[in-house]
Protein backbone atom coordinates (compact mmCIF):
# COMPACT_ATOMS: atom_id res chain seq x y z
CA UNK A 1 0.00 0.00 0.00
CA UNK A 2 1.47 3.25 -1.12
CA UNK A 3 -1.00 5.34 0.79
CA UNK A 4 0.65 5.65 4.19
CA UNK A 5 -2.47 7.10 5.78
CA UNK A 6 -3.93 3.64 6.29
CA UNK A 7 -1.21 2.78 8.81
CA UNK A 8 -1.97 5.88 10.84
CA UNK A 9 -4.56 4.33 13.21
CA UNK A 10 -2.10 1.56 14.08
CA UNK A 11 0.62 4.10 14.92
CA UNK A 12 -1.85 6.14 16.86
CA UNK A 13 -2.84 3.04 18.83
CA UNK A 14 0.76 2.12 19.51
CA UNK A 15 1.60 5.60 20.78
CA UNK A 16 -1.61 6.21 22.66
CA UNK A 17 -2.35 2.83 24.19
CA UNK A 18 1.03 1.15 24.47
CA UNK A 19 3.79 3.70 24.94
CA UNK A 20 1.99 6.55 26.70
CA UNK A 21 0.28 4.32 29.33
CA UNK A 22 3.65 2.80 30.27
CA UNK A 23 5.06 6.29 30.72
CA UNK A 24 1.94 7.51 32.54
CA UNK A 25 1.94 4.77 35.14
CA UNK A 26 5.58 5.47 35.90
CA UNK A 27 5.06 9.24 36.01
CA UNK A 28 2.06 8.79 38.27
CA UNK A 29 4.18 6.80 40.69
CA UNK A 30 6.75 9.62 41.01
CA UNK A 31 4.15 12.40 40.86
CA UNK A 32 4.29 13.45 44.51
CA UNK A 33 3.48 16.62 46.44
CA UNK A 34 5.92 19.44 45.71
CA UNK A 35 8.99 19.41 47.92
CA UNK A 36 8.92 15.66 48.41
CA UNK A 37 11.53 13.28 47.16
CA UNK A 38 10.26 12.04 43.76
CA UNK A 39 10.76 8.48 44.92
CA UNK A 40 8.66 9.21 47.99
CA UNK A 41 6.12 6.48 47.13
CA UNK A 42 8.84 3.92 46.58
CA UNK A 43 10.45 4.85 49.91
CA UNK A 44 7.04 4.45 51.56
CA UNK A 45 6.60 1.09 49.89
CA UNK A 46 9.94 -0.33 50.92
CA UNK A 47 9.87 1.04 54.44
CA UNK A 48 6.33 -0.01 55.24
CA UNK A 49 5.88 -3.41 56.84
CA UNK A 50 2.30 -3.49 55.52
CA UNK A 51 3.39 -3.27 51.87
CA UNK A 52 6.33 -5.59 52.30
CA UNK A 53 4.21 -8.16 54.10
CA UNK A 54 1.56 -7.88 51.39
CA UNK A 55 4.19 -8.43 48.68
CA UNK A 56 5.62 -11.42 50.51
CA UNK A 57 2.14 -12.88 51.04
CA UNK A 58 1.30 -12.35 47.41
CA UNK A 59 4.47 -14.20 46.46
CA UNK A 60 3.76 -17.06 48.83
CA UNK A 61 0.24 -17.46 47.46
CA UNK A 62 1.45 -17.35 43.85
CA UNK A 63 4.18 -19.83 44.72
CA UNK A 64 1.77 -22.28 46.36
CA UNK A 65 -0.72 -21.98 43.48
CA UNK A 66 2.03 -22.54 40.88
CA UNK A 67 3.41 -25.47 42.87
CA UNK A 68 0.07 -27.27 43.09
CA UNK A 69 -0.66 -26.55 39.43
CA UNK A 70 2.66 -28.09 38.45
CA UNK A 71 2.19 -31.06 40.74
CA UNK A 72 -1.22 -31.84 39.25
CA UNK A 73 -0.48 -30.84 35.65
CA UNK A 74 2.75 -32.65 34.89
CA UNK A 75 1.34 -36.17 35.32
CA UNK A 76 -1.85 -35.09 33.57
CA UNK A 77 0.08 -33.72 30.58
CA UNK A 78 2.22 -36.85 30.51
CA UNK A 79 -0.76 -39.19 30.56
CA UNK A 80 -2.59 -37.16 27.92
CA UNK A 81 0.44 -37.07 25.62
CA UNK A 82 0.69 -40.85 25.85
CA UNK A 83 -2.98 -41.43 25.24
CA UNK A 84 -4.55 -42.48 21.96
CA UNK A 85 -7.16 -39.74 22.28
CA UNK A 86 -4.69 -36.98 23.14
CA UNK A 87 -6.07 -34.21 20.92
CA UNK A 88 -9.58 -34.78 22.18
CA UNK A 89 -8.43 -34.88 25.81
CA UNK A 90 -6.43 -31.69 25.44
CA UNK A 91 -9.49 -30.02 23.91
CA UNK A 92 -11.49 -31.08 26.98
CA UNK A 93 -8.81 -29.51 29.19
CA UNK A 94 -8.82 -26.23 27.26
CA UNK A 95 -12.59 -25.92 27.02
CA UNK A 96 -13.17 -24.62 30.58
CA UNK A 97 -10.76 -21.72 29.93
CA UNK A 98 -13.36 -20.34 27.51
CA UNK A 99 -15.88 -19.96 30.29
CA UNK A 100 -15.69 -16.52 31.83
CA UNK A 101 -13.48 -16.62 34.89
CA UNK A 102 -16.03 -14.73 36.97
CA UNK A 103 -18.64 -17.40 36.38
CA UNK A 104 -16.24 -20.09 37.56
CA UNK A 105 -15.43 -18.06 40.66
CA UNK A 106 -19.16 -17.58 41.20
CA UNK A 107 -19.73 -21.35 41.01
CA UNK A 108 -17.29 -21.78 43.87
CA UNK A 109 -19.14 -19.22 45.95
CA UNK A 110 -22.10 -21.57 45.67
CA UNK A 111 -20.00 -24.63 46.41
CA UNK A 112 -18.15 -23.25 49.42
CA UNK A 113 -20.71 -20.88 50.95
CA UNK A 114 -22.33 -21.40 54.34
CA UNK A 115 -25.46 -23.03 52.91
CA UNK A 116 -23.65 -24.33 49.85
CA UNK A 117 -23.28 -27.91 48.72
CA UNK A 118 -20.06 -28.82 50.55
CA UNK A 119 -21.61 -27.75 53.82
CA UNK A 120 -24.91 -29.48 52.98
CA UNK A 121 -22.93 -32.62 52.39
CA UNK A 122 -21.06 -32.21 55.67
CA UNK A 123 -24.43 -31.63 57.32
CA UNK A 124 -25.64 -35.01 56.09
CA UNK A 125 -22.66 -36.56 57.82
CA UNK A 126 -23.59 -34.71 60.98
CA UNK A 127 -20.75 -32.21 60.79
CA UNK A 128 -21.57 -28.60 61.59
CA UNK A 129 -21.16 -26.07 58.72
CA UNK A 130 -17.63 -24.79 58.38
CA UNK A 131 -16.39 -21.46 57.11
CA UNK A 132 -14.94 -22.47 53.74
CA UNK A 133 -15.41 -19.35 51.67
CA UNK A 134 -13.15 -16.37 52.36
CA UNK A 135 -10.29 -18.50 53.61
CA UNK A 136 -6.74 -18.95 52.34
CA UNK A 137 -7.67 -22.50 51.44
CA UNK A 138 -10.58 -21.52 49.21
CA UNK A 139 -8.50 -18.91 47.41
CA UNK A 140 -5.65 -21.34 46.68
CA UNK A 141 -8.09 -24.05 45.64
CA UNK A 142 -10.03 -21.90 43.19
CA UNK A 143 -6.93 -20.21 41.76
CA UNK A 144 -5.32 -23.61 41.20
CA UNK A 145 -8.53 -24.86 39.60
CA UNK A 146 -8.57 -21.93 37.19
CA UNK A 147 -4.88 -22.07 36.31
CA UNK A 148 -4.44 -25.84 35.77
CA UNK A 149 -5.27 -25.81 32.02
CA UNK A 150 -2.67 -23.08 31.46
CA UNK A 151 -0.04 -25.33 33.02
CA UNK A 152 -1.09 -28.55 31.29
CA UNK A 153 -1.05 -27.18 27.75
CA UNK A 154 2.60 -26.03 27.45
CA UNK A 155 3.86 -29.16 29.22
CA UNK A 156 1.74 -31.32 26.94
CA UNK A 157 3.18 -29.52 23.90
CA UNK A 158 6.74 -30.07 25.06
CA UNK A 159 6.12 -33.77 25.76
CA UNK A 160 4.58 -34.15 22.32
CA UNK A 161 7.63 -32.47 20.76
CA UNK A 162 9.95 -34.90 22.54
CA UNK A 163 11.77 -37.25 20.21
CA UNK A 164 10.52 -40.69 21.23
CA UNK A 165 13.76 -42.37 20.10
CA UNK A 166 15.56 -40.76 23.07
CA UNK A 167 13.29 -42.68 25.42
CA UNK A 168 13.85 -45.94 23.59
CA UNK A 169 17.60 -45.31 23.47
CA UNK A 170 17.71 -44.68 27.18
CA UNK A 171 15.78 -47.86 27.90
CA UNK A 172 17.95 -49.88 25.52
CA UNK A 173 21.01 -48.61 27.32
CA UNK A 174 19.72 -50.07 30.55
CA UNK A 175 18.06 -47.13 32.28
CA UNK A 176 15.11 -47.95 34.50
CA UNK A 177 11.77 -46.24 33.91
CA UNK A 178 12.48 -43.78 36.71
CA UNK A 179 15.97 -43.03 35.40
CA UNK A 180 14.59 -42.47 31.91
CA UNK A 181 12.08 -40.07 33.37
CA UNK A 182 14.46 -38.03 35.54
CA UNK A 183 17.43 -38.07 33.12
CA UNK A 184 15.72 -37.82 29.74
CA UNK A 185 12.05 -36.88 29.77
CA UNK A 186 12.07 -34.28 32.53
CA UNK A 187 15.12 -32.29 31.34
CA UNK A 188 13.83 -32.26 27.76
CA UNK A 189 10.41 -30.98 28.75
CA UNK A 190 11.66 -28.20 31.01
CA UNK A 191 10.74 -25.62 28.36
CA UNK A 192 7.09 -26.47 28.73
CA UNK A 193 7.40 -26.32 32.51
CA UNK A 194 9.02 -22.87 32.27
CA UNK A 195 6.27 -21.54 30.01
CA UNK A 196 3.68 -23.03 32.33
CA UNK A 197 5.22 -21.36 35.36
CA UNK A 198 5.24 -18.01 33.56
CA UNK A 199 1.60 -18.26 32.51
CA UNK A 200 0.47 -19.27 36.00
CA UNK A 201 2.67 -17.31 38.38
CA UNK A 202 2.11 -13.81 36.98
CA UNK A 203 -1.71 -13.92 36.91
CA UNK A 204 -1.64 -15.44 40.40
CA UNK A 205 0.02 -12.24 41.60
CA UNK A 206 -2.51 -9.99 39.92
CA UNK A 207 -5.98 -11.57 39.73
CA UNK A 208 -7.80 -9.26 42.11
CA UNK A 209 -11.34 -10.43 41.40
CA UNK A 210 -10.57 -13.92 42.72
CA UNK A 211 -9.14 -12.61 45.96
CA UNK A 212 -12.19 -10.39 46.35
CA UNK A 213 -14.81 -13.01 45.55
CA UNK A 214 -13.23 -16.11 47.04
CA UNK A 215 -10.63 -14.84 49.47
CA UNK A 216 -12.92 -12.20 50.95
CA UNK A 217 -10.84 -9.32 52.16
CA UNK A 218 -8.42 -11.62 53.95
CA UNK A 219 -6.22 -12.40 50.98
CA UNK A 220 -4.49 -9.34 49.56
CA UNK A 221 -2.25 -9.72 46.53
CA UNK A 222 -0.39 -7.14 44.47
CA UNK A 223 -3.36 -7.03 42.09
CA UNK A 224 -5.82 -6.41 44.91
CA UNK A 225 -3.61 -3.65 46.26
CA UNK A 226 -3.55 -1.90 42.88
CA UNK A 227 -7.31 -2.16 42.48
CA UNK A 228 -7.87 -0.85 45.99
CA UNK A 229 -5.54 2.12 45.57
CA UNK A 230 -7.07 3.08 42.25
CA UNK A 231 -10.76 2.49 42.83
CA UNK A 232 -11.33 2.64 46.59
CA UNK A 233 -8.81 4.81 48.38
CA UNK A 234 -8.06 6.88 45.25
CA UNK A 235 -4.36 6.94 46.06
CA UNK A 236 -3.22 6.65 42.44
CA UNK A 237 0.39 7.49 43.20
CA UNK A 238 0.77 4.53 45.50
CA UNK A 239 -1.33 2.31 43.21
CA UNK A 240 0.97 3.13 40.29
CA UNK A 241 3.99 2.41 42.48
CA UNK A 242 2.65 -1.06 43.23
CA UNK A 243 1.90 -1.39 39.51
CA UNK A 244 5.47 -0.51 38.51
CA UNK A 245 6.77 -3.00 41.07
CA UNK A 246 4.43 -5.68 39.69
CA UNK A 247 5.74 -5.02 36.17
CA UNK A 248 9.35 -5.26 37.39
CA UNK A 249 8.57 -8.54 39.18
CA UNK A 250 6.92 -9.82 36.02
CA UNK A 251 9.96 -9.01 33.89
CA UNK A 252 12.22 -10.65 36.50
CA UNK A 253 10.13 -13.82 36.51
CA UNK A 254 10.16 -14.06 32.73
CA UNK A 255 13.93 -13.50 32.81
CA UNK A 256 14.54 -16.11 35.52
CA UNK A 257 12.33 -18.75 33.94
CA UNK A 258 13.46 -18.18 30.38
CA UNK A 259 15.85 -20.60 28.79
CA UNK A 260 19.40 -20.69 30.16
CA UNK A 261 21.79 -19.25 27.60
CA UNK A 262 22.19 -21.30 24.44
CA UNK A 263 22.35 -24.72 25.89
CA UNK A 264 22.39 -27.37 23.20
CA UNK A 265 19.14 -29.25 22.93
CA UNK A 266 19.76 -32.90 23.49
CA UNK A 267 20.96 -35.30 26.12
CA UNK A 268 24.35 -34.80 27.64
CA UNK A 269 26.00 -38.17 27.13
CA UNK A 270 28.65 -37.66 29.80
CA UNK A 271 26.10 -37.67 32.54
Amino acid at each position, binding site marked *: MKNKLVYLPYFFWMAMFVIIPIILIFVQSINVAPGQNIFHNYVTYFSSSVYLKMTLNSFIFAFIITFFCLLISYPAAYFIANSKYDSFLILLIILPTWINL*LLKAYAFIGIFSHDGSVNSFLGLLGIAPKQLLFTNFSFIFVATYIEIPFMILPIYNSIKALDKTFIRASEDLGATKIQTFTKVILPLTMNGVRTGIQTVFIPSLSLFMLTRLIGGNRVITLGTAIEEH*FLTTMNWGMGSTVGVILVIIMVLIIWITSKPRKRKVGVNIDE
Partner: protein
Amino acid sequence: MNKIISRVYLIFLLVILYLPIFYLILFAFNEGDNMGAFQGFSLGHFRDLFSDTRMISIVINTMLIAILSSLIATIIGLFGALFIDRLKSKRAANIYLSLNDVLLVSPDVIIGSSFLILFTVLGFSLGFMSVLLSHIAFSIPIVVLMILPRLQEMNKSMIDAAQDLGATRIQAFNKVVLPFLLPSILTGFFMAFTYSLDDFAVTFFVTGNGFETLSVEVYSQARQGVNLEINALSALIFGFSLIMIIIYYLLTVRNKKSVRVGKGRII
Protein backbone atom coordinates in the same frame (compact mmCIF):
# COMPACT_ATOMS: atom_id res chain seq x y z
CA MET B 1 -1.48 -51.14 35.62
CA ASN B 2 0.01 -47.91 34.31
CA LYS B 3 -2.91 -47.56 31.95
CA ILE B 4 -5.35 -47.82 34.84
CA ILE B 5 -3.54 -45.19 36.89
CA SER B 6 -3.43 -42.77 33.98
CA ARG B 7 -7.06 -43.34 33.13
CA VAL B 8 -8.26 -42.89 36.71
CA TYR B 9 -6.11 -39.79 37.12
CA LEU B 10 -7.40 -38.14 33.96
CA ILE B 11 -11.02 -38.99 34.65
CA PHE B 12 -10.70 -37.61 38.15
CA LEU B 13 -9.11 -34.40 36.85
CA LEU B 14 -11.75 -33.88 34.16
CA VAL B 15 -14.54 -34.47 36.67
CA ILE B 16 -13.04 -31.81 38.94
CA LEU B 17 -12.63 -29.40 36.01
CA TYR B 18 -16.21 -29.77 34.82
CA LEU B 19 -18.08 -30.32 38.06
CA PRO B 20 -18.28 -26.63 39.08
CA ILE B 21 -19.49 -25.61 35.62
CA PHE B 22 -22.24 -28.23 35.48
CA TYR B 23 -23.11 -27.53 39.07
CA LEU B 24 -23.61 -23.88 38.19
CA ILE B 25 -25.85 -24.75 35.25
CA LEU B 26 -27.81 -27.37 37.16
CA PHE B 27 -28.83 -24.89 39.83
CA ALA B 28 -30.10 -22.49 37.19
CA PHE B 29 -33.03 -24.92 37.03
CA ASN B 30 -33.50 -25.08 40.79
CA GLU B 31 -36.85 -24.19 42.25
CA GLY B 32 -35.22 -23.00 45.47
CA ASP B 33 -33.15 -19.89 45.97
CA ASN B 34 -29.69 -21.13 46.84
CA MET B 35 -27.05 -23.54 45.60
CA GLY B 36 -27.25 -25.80 48.65
CA ALA B 37 -29.88 -28.34 47.76
CA PHE B 38 -31.77 -28.97 44.55
CA GLN B 39 -35.46 -28.53 45.32
CA GLY B 40 -37.04 -29.45 42.02
CA PHE B 41 -36.98 -28.40 38.40
CA SER B 42 -38.13 -24.93 37.46
CA LEU B 43 -37.53 -22.40 34.71
CA GLY B 44 -38.41 -19.57 37.06
CA HIS B 45 -34.93 -18.09 37.14
CA PHE B 46 -34.79 -17.92 33.37
CA ARG B 47 -38.16 -16.19 33.43
CA ASP B 48 -36.81 -13.69 35.94
CA LEU B 49 -33.78 -13.14 33.75
CA PHE B 50 -35.77 -12.46 30.60
CA SER B 51 -38.10 -10.04 32.36
CA ASP B 52 -35.18 -8.15 33.91
CA THR B 53 -34.93 -5.19 31.54
CA ARG B 54 -31.81 -3.92 33.21
CA MET B 55 -30.06 -7.23 32.62
CA ILE B 56 -31.19 -7.30 29.00
CA SER B 57 -29.81 -3.83 28.37
CA ILE B 58 -26.51 -4.94 29.92
CA VAL B 59 -26.40 -7.93 27.57
CA ILE B 60 -27.06 -5.61 24.62
CA ASN B 61 -24.32 -3.23 25.76
CA THR B 62 -21.88 -6.10 26.10
CA MET B 63 -22.63 -7.42 22.62
CA LEU B 64 -22.46 -3.94 21.12
CA ILE B 65 -19.04 -3.32 22.67
CA ALA B 66 -17.82 -6.75 21.55
CA ILE B 67 -18.97 -6.35 17.94
CA LEU B 68 -17.81 -2.75 17.51
CA SER B 69 -14.47 -3.23 19.23
CA SER B 70 -13.60 -6.41 17.35
CA LEU B 71 -14.62 -4.90 14.02
CA ILE B 72 -12.51 -1.78 14.51
CA ALA B 73 -9.61 -3.71 16.03
CA THR B 74 -9.61 -6.06 13.03
CA ILE B 75 -9.34 -3.18 10.56
CA ILE B 76 -6.58 -1.39 12.49
CA GLY B 77 -4.78 -4.68 13.19
CA LEU B 78 -4.93 -5.69 9.52
CA PHE B 79 -3.06 -2.53 8.53
CA GLY B 80 -0.70 -3.00 11.45
CA ALA B 81 0.18 -6.46 10.16
CA LEU B 82 0.61 -5.11 6.61
CA PHE B 83 2.92 -2.43 7.98
CA ILE B 84 5.10 -4.83 9.99
CA ASP B 85 5.27 -7.24 7.07
CA ARG B 86 6.51 -4.46 4.76
CA LEU B 87 9.44 -3.52 6.99
CA LYS B 88 12.71 -4.47 5.37
CA SER B 89 14.87 -4.35 8.49
CA LYS B 90 14.44 -7.35 10.71
CA ARG B 91 15.40 -5.31 13.76
CA ALA B 92 12.70 -2.73 13.17
CA ALA B 93 10.13 -5.48 12.68
CA ASN B 94 11.17 -7.04 15.97
CA ILE B 95 10.88 -3.74 17.82
CA TYR B 96 7.38 -3.14 16.44
CA LEU B 97 6.38 -6.70 17.25
CA SER B 98 7.57 -6.38 20.85
CA LEU B 99 5.63 -3.13 21.24
CA ASN B 100 2.66 -4.86 19.65
CA ASP B 101 2.82 -7.64 22.26
CA VAL B 102 3.09 -5.40 25.34
CA LEU B 103 -0.66 -5.43 25.95
CA LEU B 104 -0.83 -9.20 25.47
CA VAL B 105 1.64 -9.97 28.24
CA SER B 106 0.70 -7.21 30.68
CA PRO B 107 -1.50 -8.22 33.60
CA ASP B 108 -5.05 -6.87 33.27
CA VAL B 109 -4.76 -4.71 36.38
CA ILE B 110 -1.84 -2.86 34.83
CA ILE B 111 -3.68 -2.31 31.55
CA GLY B 112 -6.79 -1.19 33.41
CA SER B 113 -5.07 1.19 35.77
CA SER B 114 -2.83 2.75 33.12
CA PHE B 115 -5.82 3.29 30.80
CA LEU B 116 -7.70 4.86 33.68
CA ILE B 117 -4.83 7.32 34.16
CA LEU B 118 -4.76 7.94 30.40
CA PHE B 119 -8.47 8.75 30.16
CA THR B 120 -8.29 10.97 33.21
CA VAL B 121 -5.26 12.90 31.92
CA LEU B 122 -7.05 13.43 28.61
CA GLY B 123 -10.17 14.58 30.43
CA PHE B 124 -12.14 11.81 28.75
CA SER B 125 -15.29 10.89 30.65
CA LEU B 126 -15.66 7.27 31.66
CA GLY B 127 -18.46 5.23 30.14
CA PHE B 128 -19.33 3.60 26.84
CA MET B 129 -16.58 5.30 24.84
CA SER B 130 -13.78 4.62 27.30
CA VAL B 131 -14.77 0.96 27.51
CA LEU B 132 -15.01 0.71 23.72
CA LEU B 133 -11.60 2.33 23.20
CA SER B 134 -10.01 0.07 25.81
CA HIS B 135 -11.45 -3.04 24.21
CA ILE B 136 -10.24 -1.94 20.78
CA ALA B 137 -6.82 -1.29 22.31
CA PHE B 138 -6.34 -4.67 23.94
CA SER B 139 -7.72 -6.54 20.91
CA ILE B 140 -5.45 -5.02 18.23
CA PRO B 141 -2.30 -7.02 19.12
CA ILE B 142 -4.04 -10.39 18.85
CA VAL B 143 -5.44 -9.47 15.44
CA VAL B 144 -1.93 -8.55 14.26
CA LEU B 145 -0.56 -11.83 15.60
CA MET B 146 -3.22 -13.81 13.78
CA ILE B 147 -2.79 -12.07 10.40
CA LEU B 148 0.98 -11.58 10.26
CA PRO B 149 2.07 -15.25 9.84
CA ARG B 150 -0.38 -15.73 6.97
CA LEU B 151 0.91 -12.54 5.36
CA GLN B 152 4.50 -13.71 5.68
CA GLU B 153 3.73 -16.97 4.00
CA MET B 154 2.07 -15.20 1.07
CA ASN B 155 3.87 -15.27 -2.22
CA LYS B 156 4.38 -11.58 -2.95
CA SER B 157 4.89 -12.12 -6.66
CA MET B 158 1.13 -12.65 -6.84
CA ILE B 159 0.73 -8.92 -6.26
CA ASP B 160 3.26 -8.13 -8.99
CA ALA B 161 1.47 -10.50 -11.31
CA ALA B 162 -1.83 -8.77 -10.65
CA GLN B 163 -0.30 -5.38 -11.31
CA ASP B 164 1.46 -6.59 -14.45
CA LEU B 165 -1.89 -7.74 -15.69
CA GLY B 166 -3.18 -4.22 -15.28
CA ALA B 167 -4.71 -4.18 -11.83
CA THR B 168 -4.39 -0.97 -9.86
CA ARG B 169 -2.84 -1.12 -6.38
CA ILE B 170 -6.25 -1.05 -4.76
CA GLN B 171 -7.57 -3.74 -7.09
CA ALA B 172 -4.56 -5.93 -6.36
CA PHE B 173 -5.15 -5.46 -2.66
CA ASN B 174 -8.87 -6.19 -2.85
CA LYS B 175 -8.69 -9.09 -5.29
CA VAL B 176 -5.43 -10.77 -4.28
CA VAL B 177 -4.26 -9.85 -0.81
CA LEU B 178 -7.59 -9.70 1.02
CA PRO B 179 -8.97 -13.06 -0.20
CA PHE B 180 -5.68 -14.72 0.70
CA LEU B 181 -5.75 -13.22 4.19
CA LEU B 182 -9.45 -13.80 4.77
CA PRO B 183 -9.21 -16.90 7.02
CA SER B 184 -6.69 -15.20 9.29
CA ILE B 185 -8.71 -11.97 9.33
CA LEU B 186 -11.76 -13.96 10.44
CA THR B 187 -9.76 -15.72 13.15
CA GLY B 188 -8.41 -12.37 14.35
CA PHE B 189 -11.88 -10.87 14.42
CA PHE B 190 -13.19 -13.85 16.31
CA MET B 191 -10.39 -13.75 18.88
CA ALA B 192 -10.95 -10.03 19.40
CA PHE B 193 -14.65 -10.70 19.85
CA THR B 194 -14.12 -13.33 22.54
CA TYR B 195 -11.47 -11.21 24.28
CA SER B 196 -13.97 -8.43 24.56
CA LEU B 197 -16.70 -10.72 25.92
CA ASP B 198 -14.30 -12.28 28.42
CA ASP B 199 -12.80 -9.13 29.77
CA PHE B 200 -13.58 -8.09 33.28
CA ALA B 201 -10.57 -6.38 34.85
CA VAL B 202 -9.86 -3.71 32.24
CA THR B 203 -13.54 -2.83 31.89
CA PHE B 204 -13.89 -2.66 35.65
CA PHE B 205 -11.23 0.06 35.80
CA VAL B 206 -12.44 2.24 32.93
CA THR B 207 -16.19 1.91 33.17
CA GLY B 208 -17.05 4.56 35.74
CA ASN B 209 -20.62 4.72 36.98
CA GLY B 210 -23.67 4.09 34.89
CA PHE B 211 -22.25 1.85 32.20
CA GLU B 212 -21.93 -1.87 32.81
CA THR B 213 -20.96 -4.95 30.88
CA LEU B 214 -21.95 -8.49 31.80
CA SER B 215 -18.71 -9.35 33.57
CA VAL B 216 -18.88 -6.25 35.73
CA GLU B 217 -22.50 -7.02 36.54
CA VAL B 218 -21.73 -10.64 37.45
CA TYR B 219 -18.92 -9.42 39.67
CA SER B 220 -21.01 -6.93 41.59
CA GLN B 221 -23.87 -9.42 41.97
CA ALA B 222 -21.53 -12.20 43.05
CA ARG B 223 -20.13 -9.95 45.75
CA GLN B 224 -23.65 -9.82 47.22
CA GLY B 225 -23.79 -13.62 47.37
CA VAL B 226 -25.69 -16.26 45.47
CA ASN B 227 -28.49 -15.21 43.12
CA LEU B 228 -29.79 -17.93 40.87
CA GLU B 229 -30.51 -15.44 38.11
CA ILE B 230 -26.75 -15.43 37.58
CA ASN B 231 -26.89 -19.22 37.25
CA ALA B 232 -29.50 -18.87 34.55
CA LEU B 233 -27.29 -16.32 32.83
CA SER B 234 -24.29 -18.65 33.16
CA ALA B 235 -26.22 -21.46 31.54
CA LEU B 236 -26.94 -19.21 28.55
CA ILE B 237 -23.34 -17.97 28.40
CA PHE B 238 -22.10 -21.55 28.56
CA GLY B 239 -24.25 -22.47 25.59
CA PHE B 240 -22.98 -19.41 23.76
CA SER B 241 -19.35 -20.30 24.59
CA LEU B 242 -19.86 -23.77 23.16
CA ILE B 243 -21.06 -22.23 19.89
CA MET B 244 -17.99 -19.93 19.91
CA ILE B 245 -15.65 -22.87 20.42
CA ILE B 246 -17.20 -24.74 17.52
CA ILE B 247 -16.77 -21.67 15.29
CA TYR B 248 -13.19 -21.29 16.46
CA TYR B 249 -12.30 -24.87 15.62
CA LEU B 250 -13.96 -24.57 12.24
CA LEU B 251 -11.91 -21.43 11.57
CA THR B 252 -8.56 -22.77 12.73
CA VAL B 253 -8.85 -26.34 11.56
CA ARG B 254 -6.54 -25.47 8.66
CA ASN B 255 -3.68 -23.84 10.51
CA LYS B 256 -3.34 -25.09 14.05
CA LYS B 257 -0.43 -22.95 15.06
CA SER B 258 -1.60 -21.47 18.28
CA VAL B 259 -4.35 -22.27 20.67
CA ARG B 260 -6.46 -19.72 22.41
CA VAL B 261 -6.63 -20.46 26.10
CA GLY B 262 -8.37 -17.81 28.10
CA LYS B 263 -8.03 -14.13 27.49
CA GLY B 264 -4.61 -12.75 26.82
CA ARG B 265 -2.86 -16.07 26.81
CA ILE B 266 -1.73 -17.72 23.65
CA ILE B 267 0.32 -20.84 24.04
